[in-house]
C-alpha cells in the first residue's frame, strides 16, 4: 500500500496496476490515476521548480489549472513539455520527467536564483537586457553573454527537435447545441436539449463526464453524485442525436458560433490503434452553445503559499474522493469562505487528521462551526496564515490574529504542525470562452468574482460558470439552458434532488495576507504580490500593462489561478475598487494546443500533388520531375551520366534537328461557351477574337485592369459559341477567377459560361522538322498537311483509336502541333506518338528544353509577365487592338506605363561564354566591389544549342535602343560578373519560317 493511498474510495481501478517512470524512477499507480494522483499516492511532494526562482513546488490543483506540476512526457525521441501532471492519465510505460531543473528536481542549482532577491523582480528582463549604462561594461556585449545563461535559468520545459511521427486530424462538426463542460449543469443541459430531439455535442476536457459530481461527495437523486453523473452520461451515450467528446478541451470561441476544440484521442494509451490519431482538432459550428464550464478555486496570497504541501482545498477533496489519495496526514485549512469546510469533512472521512481550520472571518456561521466540529478540527476564526515551514515538503505553518476588514495582523504568531495546508480564496467562474466570444466580464461584489458578460453570441450559461455555485442551482440552470438552447418549453417535471453540505457562496473580500516573505500571486510565472505593487509604483496602472510587465496570467495556465488575486492587489495599490481596474480579455487558446493538431492531416504533406495523365509514363521512362506550382512536370529525361545542361541541350537540339515531344497537359484550359462568348473574349483579350474562324486558334494577351500584362495563351474556336482558352500553367486559376469575376460582377448580362477543362484534356506538343511526318504516320480520320492544317488551324482525328484534336501552333519555334485527347487516353496517345516517332529519332523533352527553345525564340512567360511589365515592355503592343476597348485599355497608357525609361524585353548573349543566372543585374560599367546603377535584370537563361552560346532574356532600361551594345552582368550574390551583348529577344528564326513551314 502506498503511503497516501486510502483503503477505499475513488474511481480508480485498484485491481489494475500501472507502471511508469518519473525522472527515471519507477512508480506504480492504478488505472484511472493521473500522473499527479499516482505520484501523490506514492508520497511524492516535489513536482517541479518555479519559473524564475527555481523554488520547489508541489501540486496546487487537481485539474487543468495546475500551474506548478508541469512535466515533459517522452514518447521515444519525441518530447512534449509543459503538460500539467494533473492532466496526464497514466498508462503502462509512461515516461515523464520534471522541468526547469539542473541537475535534478531535488537538487537544482537554479535554486541559487532565490538569493537574487529584488534583482529578479517584475520587469527583470526588460530592465537587464538594456545592458549596463555605466561602468566598464558599458557598451560591451556583456549582457548579451549573460542573456544566454539567464534564458537557460528561467523557463518551462524544452521543446523537442525530433520529428513527431504521431498522426493528427481535423474534424468538422455541426450541432444544434454544443454543451461545454459536463458537470451537473452540463449533463442536465445536454440531456434536456437531447430530449428535444436536436443534435447535441457534449465536450469535457476530463476523461470522465461529471465534473464536480465526481468528487463533491454529494448525492443526487438518492445516489452518490458520481454514480448519478455516470448514469446521465450513459443515457446520453445511448442517444443517436448526441455526440460525447471526453478528453476534449474547447479552447476557442470564434465568430459565428464556431468553436475550436482539441480531443486527446490516444495520449492516455500505451499504443494507438492503427490509423488512430493522437489528437483531433474539432472545428464545431454550433447553433447554440451552453457554457457550463464551472469555476476555479482561487489561492490565497500569503507568505510561503507556494511551498510543496500547500494545495487548493477542493483539489485535496478531489484527490481523496476521485483518486483515493490523501494529500497529507495532518491537514490544516485556510479559507475566506465556506466551501473549505466541506473539504475538511471529506479529508477527515478519508482518514486524515484535520488539525485546524483557519478562517479569516471572525463571524463563522454555526453551520460551518458544526462542520469544523464534525471534522474534529480546531477552528481559528479571525486568523490568517502568515508563514509556512519546510523545504521540499510542508512541516508546519504560523498563524496570527487577522482583521478581515482592515487586513491587519495582531497578537503572537502561533505554530501549527501540519504536512498539508489546504487553502480556499473563493471561486472564480471559468468565463474564458465567454470572454473570447466578445464581451466584457462583470464584477460581482457578493461573489467577489468576475461573472460572465451578457452574451453577444448565441450562448447560454449554466451552473458555477454563472456564479451559481451550488449543485442544486447548477442542475436547475443546466436544464433551463438546455431547453432554451434547443428551443423547448420550460418543464414542470421535478428536478433531481441534491443532498449537499450547505454553505454561503460569498467569500470574505480577502485576497492577501500582508506579512514578511514572498507571497505568490502567479505561481507559474513566479509573480509575487510585491511584484504587482512594484509595477504599480513604476507606473503600470492599466491592467493590460500590469499583465505584460509582470507576466501575471501568462504562460500555459493563462491566469486561471492568479487573475482575480492579482487584480485585487493592483486595485488596492491604486486605491480603486476592482471593477474600475477591470480585467484582461481572455484570448484563445484556453489551454495549450499542439501545433500538430492545427496542421492536422497536412502534417508532413503540405500540398496536394497535381499529376498529368502521363505522369507515370514520365517516371517509368527516366524523367527527373520537379514541382511547378502544385503540378509535377518532367525537368529532363536524362541519360546515364548526363548533367541537367547536357540533357536539355541534347533534347532541344534533337527537337530542332528532327522532332521532340513534351507533355503540355498542365496548360490551363478554360471552356468559354455561350452566345456572348466571342464578345466576352473581345473584352478580355487585348486583341480581337470575334473575327476568329471556327476551327482556328489565335494567340491572345490579357491585361489586368490596371493596364499591366496579365497572361497569354492561345484560344481555339471549336464552334460558333464554343471556345477553348489556354492559359499559362501558373496562371490558370487566376485567369479563371478573373473571368468569373467579370461575368458575375461586371457583365452579368453576358450569356457566357466558363468552366475549367484543364483536366479534361491530355496535351502533347510535338515539334520539329519531322513533327508533321510523325503525326501523318499515326493520325487517322484527317490529313495534317499544310492545306488541311495550316498554322493555327485545328483538325479532329484519331490516334491509337481514340479521338484527338490537333492544333498547329508552336512554342518552340519549330513546326509544331498540340495533340489533345481525353485525359483518360493521354498515355495511350502519348505512347502512340512516341512509337510513331521512333523512325524519326523523336525525343521526349522536359521543361528545361522547353524553356531553352522558348528563350531562343524570345517568347515570354510568367518570368517576364511578372505583374510589373506592360504589353509594350514585352514588345506585344502589336496585340493592343485600337478597334475596341478591353480590360486594361483605359489604364495602359498612363504616364508611368509608357515612360521611356521602363524596363523592356531584350536578349543577352554572354560574351565570356559562361552561364548567366536568372536575377543577375545588367550594368553599363562593372564595379564588383560596389555594384550599382542596375539597368535591369535577367528573367530567363540557358545554353542555346541553336546558337552555341549562353543566352538570356532580360528586362533592361532602354530596351531596343540598346540592341547591339555591350553591357555587363553584375551578380554579386553568385559572384558572376562579365560582358554581355544586348540583342533582340528573337534569337532564333526571327521571321518564323521554321514554324510556318
Amino acid at each position, binding site marked *: 500500500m502506498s503511503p497516501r493511498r486510502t483503503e477505499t474510495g475513488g474511481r480508480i481501478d485498484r485491481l489494475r496496476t500501472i507502471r511508469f517512470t518519473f525522472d527515471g524512477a519507477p512508480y506504480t499507480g492504478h488505472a484511472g490515476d493521473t500522473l499527479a494522483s499516482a505520484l501523490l499516492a506514492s508520497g511524492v511532494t516535489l513536482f517541479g521548480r518555479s519559473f524564475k526562482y527555481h523554488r520547489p513546488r508541489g501540486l496546487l490543483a487537481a485539474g487543468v489549472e495546475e500551474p506548478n506540476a508541469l512535466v515533459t512526457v517522452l514518447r521515444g525521441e519525441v518530447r512534449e513539455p509543459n503538460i500539467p501532471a494533473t492532466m496526464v492519465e497514466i498508462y503502462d510505460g509512461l515516461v515523464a520527467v520534471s522541468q526547469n531543473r539542473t541537475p535534478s528536481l531535488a537538487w537544482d542549482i537554479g535554486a541559487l536564483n532565490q538569493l537574487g532577491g529584488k534583482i529578479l523582480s517584475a520587469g527583470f528582463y526588460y530592465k537587464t537586457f538594456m545592458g549596463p549604462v555605466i561602468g566598464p561594461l558599458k557598451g560591451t556585449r556583456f549582457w548579451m553573454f549573460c542573456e544566454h545563461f539567464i534564458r537557460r535559468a528561467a523557463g518551462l520545459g524544452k521543446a523537442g527537435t525530433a520529428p513527431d511521427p504521431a498522426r493528427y486530424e481535423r474534424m468538422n462538426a*455541426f450541432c444544434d447545441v454544443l454543451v461545454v463542460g459536463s458537470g451537473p449543469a452540463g449533463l442536465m443541459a445536454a440531456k434536456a436539449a437531447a430530449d428535444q430531439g436536436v443534435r447535441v455535442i457534449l465536450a469535457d476536457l476530463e476523461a470522465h463526464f461529471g465534473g464536480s459530481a465526481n468528487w463533491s461527495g454529494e448525492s443526487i437523486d438518492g445516489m452518490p453524485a458520481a454514480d448519478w453523473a455516470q448514469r446521465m452520461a450513459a443515457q446520453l451515450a445511448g442517444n443517436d442525436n448526441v455526440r460525447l467528446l471526453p478528453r476534449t478541451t474547447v479552447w476557442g470561441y470564434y465568430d459565428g458560433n464556431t468553436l475550436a476544440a482539441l480531443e486527446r484521442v490516444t495520449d492516455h494509451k500505451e499504443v494507438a490503434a492503427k*490509423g488512430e490519431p493522437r489528437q483531433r482538432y474539432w472545428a464545431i459550428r454550433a447553433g447554440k452553445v451552453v457554457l457550463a464550464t464551472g469555476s476555479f478555486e482561487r489561492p490565497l496570497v500569503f507568505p510561503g503559499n507556494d511551498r510543496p504541501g500547500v494545495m487548493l482545498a477542493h483539489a485535496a477533496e478531489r484527490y481523496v474522493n476521485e483518486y483515493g489519495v490523501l494529500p497529507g496526514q495532518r491537514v490544516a485549512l485556510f479559507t475566506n469562505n465556506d466551501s473549505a469546510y466541506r473539504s475538511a469533512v471529506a479529508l477527515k472521512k478519508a482518514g486524515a487528521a484535520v488539525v485546524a481550520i483557519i478562517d479569516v472571518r471572525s463571524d463563522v456561521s454555526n453551520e460551518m462551526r458544526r462542520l469544523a466540529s464534525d471534522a474534529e478540527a480546531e477552528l481559528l476564526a479571525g486568523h490568517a496564515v502568515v508563514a509556512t515551514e519546510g523545504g521540499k515538503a510542508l512541516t508546519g505553518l504560523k498563524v496570527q490574529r487577522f482583521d478581515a476588514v482592515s487586513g491587519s495582523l495582531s497578537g503572537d504568531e502561533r505554530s501549527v504542525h501540519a504536512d498539508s495546508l489546504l487553502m480556499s480564496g473563493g471561486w472564480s467562474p471559468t468565463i474564458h470562452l465567454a470572454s473570447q466570444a466578445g464581451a466584457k466580464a462583470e464584477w460581482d461584489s457578493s461573489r467577489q468574482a468576475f461573472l460572465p458578460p451578457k452574451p453577444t453570441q448565441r450562448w447560454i450559461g449554466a451552473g458555477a460558470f454563472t456564479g451559481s455555485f451550488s449543485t442544486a442551482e447548477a442542475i436547475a440552470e443546466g436544464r433551463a439552458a438546455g431547453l432554451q438552447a434547443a428551443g423547448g418549453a420550460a418543464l414542470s417535471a421535478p428536478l433531481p434532488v441534491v443532498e449537499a453540505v450547505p454553505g454561503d457562496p460569498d467569500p470574505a473580500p480577502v485576497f492577501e495576507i500582508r506579512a514578511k516573505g514572498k507571497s505568490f500571486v502567479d505561481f507559474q510565472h513566479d509573480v509575487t504580490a510585491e511584484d504587482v505593487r512594484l509595477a504599480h509604483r513604476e507606473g503600470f496602472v492599466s491592467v493590460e500593462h500590469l499583465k505584460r510587465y509582470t507576466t501575471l496570467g501568462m504562460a500555459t495556465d493563462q491566469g486561471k489561478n492568479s487573475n482575480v488575486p492579482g487584480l485585487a492587489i493592483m486595485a488596492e495599490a491604486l486605491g480603486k475598487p476592482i471593477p474600475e481596474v477591470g480585467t484582461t480579455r481572455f484570448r484563445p487558446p484556453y489551454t495549450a494546443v499542439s501545433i500538430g493538431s492545427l496542421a492536422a*492531416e497536412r502534417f508532413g504533406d503540405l500540398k496536394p500533388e497535381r499529376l498529368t*495523365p502521363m505522369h507515370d509514363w514520365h517516371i517509368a521512362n527516366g524523367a527527373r520531375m520537379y514541382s511547378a506550382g502544385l503540378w509535377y512536370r518532367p525537368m529532363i529525361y536524362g541519360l546515364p551520366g548526363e548533367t541537367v545542361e547536357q540533357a536539355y541541350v541534347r533534347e532541344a537540339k534533337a527537337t530542332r534537328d528532327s522532332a521532340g515531344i513534351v507533355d503540355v497537359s498542365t496548360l490551363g484550359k478554360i471552356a468559354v461557351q455561350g452566345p456572348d462568348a466571342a464578345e466576352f473574349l473581345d473584352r478580355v483579350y487585348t486583341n480581337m477574337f470575334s473575327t476568329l474562324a471556327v476551327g482556328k486558334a489565335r494567340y491572345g494577351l490579357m491585361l489586368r485592369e490596371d493596364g499591366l500584362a496579365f497572361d497569354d495563351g492561345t484560344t481555339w474556336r471549336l464552334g460558333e459559341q464554343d471556345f477553348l482558352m489556354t492559359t499559362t500553367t501558373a496562371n490558370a486559376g487566376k485567369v479563371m477567377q478573373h473571368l468569373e469575376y467579370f461575368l458575375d460582377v461586371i457583365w452579368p448580362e453576358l450569356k457566357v459560361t466558363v468552366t475549367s477543362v484543364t483536366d479534361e484534356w491530355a496535351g502533347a506538343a510535338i515539334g520539329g522538322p519531322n513533327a508533321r511526318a510523325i503525326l501523318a504516320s499515326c493520325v487517322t480520320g484527317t490529313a495534317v498537311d499544310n492545306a488541311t492544317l495550316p498554322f493555327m488551324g485545328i483538325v479532329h482525328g484519331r490516334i491509337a*483509336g481514340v479521338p484527338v484534336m490537333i492544333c498547329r501552333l508552336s512554342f518552340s519555334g519549330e513546326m509544331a502541333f498540340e495533340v489533345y485527347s481525353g485525359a*483518360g487516353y493521354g498515355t495511350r496517345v502519348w505512347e502512340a506518338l512516341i512509337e510513331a516517332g521512333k523512325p524519326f529519332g523523336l525525343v521526349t523533352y522536359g521543361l528545361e528544353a522547353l524553356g531553352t527553345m522558348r528563350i531562343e525564340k524570345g517568347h515570354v512567360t510568367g518570368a517576364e509577365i511578372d505583374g510589373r511589365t506592360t504589353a509594350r515592355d514585352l514588345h506585344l503592343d502589336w496585340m493592343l487592338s485600337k478597334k475596341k476597348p478591353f480590360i486594361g485599355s483605359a489604364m495602359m497608357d498612363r504616364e508611368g506605363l509608357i515612360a521611356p525609361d521602363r524596363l523592356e524585353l531584350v536578349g543577352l548573349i554572354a560574351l565570356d561564354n559562361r552561364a548567366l543566372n536568372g536575377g543577375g543585374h545588367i550594368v553599363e560599367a562593372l564595379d564588383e566591389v560596389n555594384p550599382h546603377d542596375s539597368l535591369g535584370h535577367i528573367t530567363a537563361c540557358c545554353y542555346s544549342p541553336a546558337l552555341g552560346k549562353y543566352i538570356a532574356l532580360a528586362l533592361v532600361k532602354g530596351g531596343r535602343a540598346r540592341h547591339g551594345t555591350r553591357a555587363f552582368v553584375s551578380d554579386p550574390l553568385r559572384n558572376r560578373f562579365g560582358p554581355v551583348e544586348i540583342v533582340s529577344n528573337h534569337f532564333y528564326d526571327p521571321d518564323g519560317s521554321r514554324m510556318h513551314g
Partner: protein
Amino acid sequence: MAEQQLPERQSPLEPEYHPGSHGNFEHGIDVILSETRPGSILQLAAWPGEEKRLIEIIRKVTGLTLPDGAGGGTSSGARAVFGFAPGKFTVVDEAEGLAAAFAGIITPAIGTLTDLSHGRTAIRIAGPKAEWVMAKFFAIDFALPAFPLGAGRSTNHHDIFAQIQRTGADQFDIYVFRSFARSFWKALCHASEEVGYEVQ
C-alpha cells in the same frame, strides 16, 4: 466519323488503387472506397430564367427529376444529377455518350453543355463511418437532414475542389479534378485507416 468502340480509359488512381482491406480493419470494415468510373460526367448550365427548361431537358434525357431548391439532386442506379451552383448541374451516367444525347437539345437560348467525362474522377465512399471520414475533409454538415439523399454540394479540401453528392444514406460520390484525384485518394485512404476500409 464512324462510331468506334473506344478503349478503356486509364484511371488516375491506378498505382495507388489497392483492392482489399486496409487500416484498422481487424475490428470491422466501416467504409468502402471505390472509383465508380462513370462513362459520362457533364456540366449543364442554364442562363438565368432558363433553369426550369434545363431541368425539364435533364428529366427527358435521363429520366431523373430534380427536386426544387439549391443543391437538390437525385440518382438512380446508373445515373445521377445534382445542382452544384445557381443554374448549374452535374449529370452523370455509367455509360459513355451522354453528351451526345444532350447536344442539340440544350440550345444556346437555354444554356451550355460541357463534357467533363475525362476531367473529373468519381470516388465513392460508403459505409457506417462515411460521414465520419468525410467530416475530416470538408466543413460541411453531412447529417442526413442537412444533406439529404440525392443532394449535391460544391466545396473544397484545401486546394482540391470537390463536388459531393449523397447517393445513399451512408454513401457519397465525390467528384474531384482528375489531376488531383490520386492525391485526394491517398488522403482519403489515410483518413479511413482509423475506421478500417476496403477498396473495391
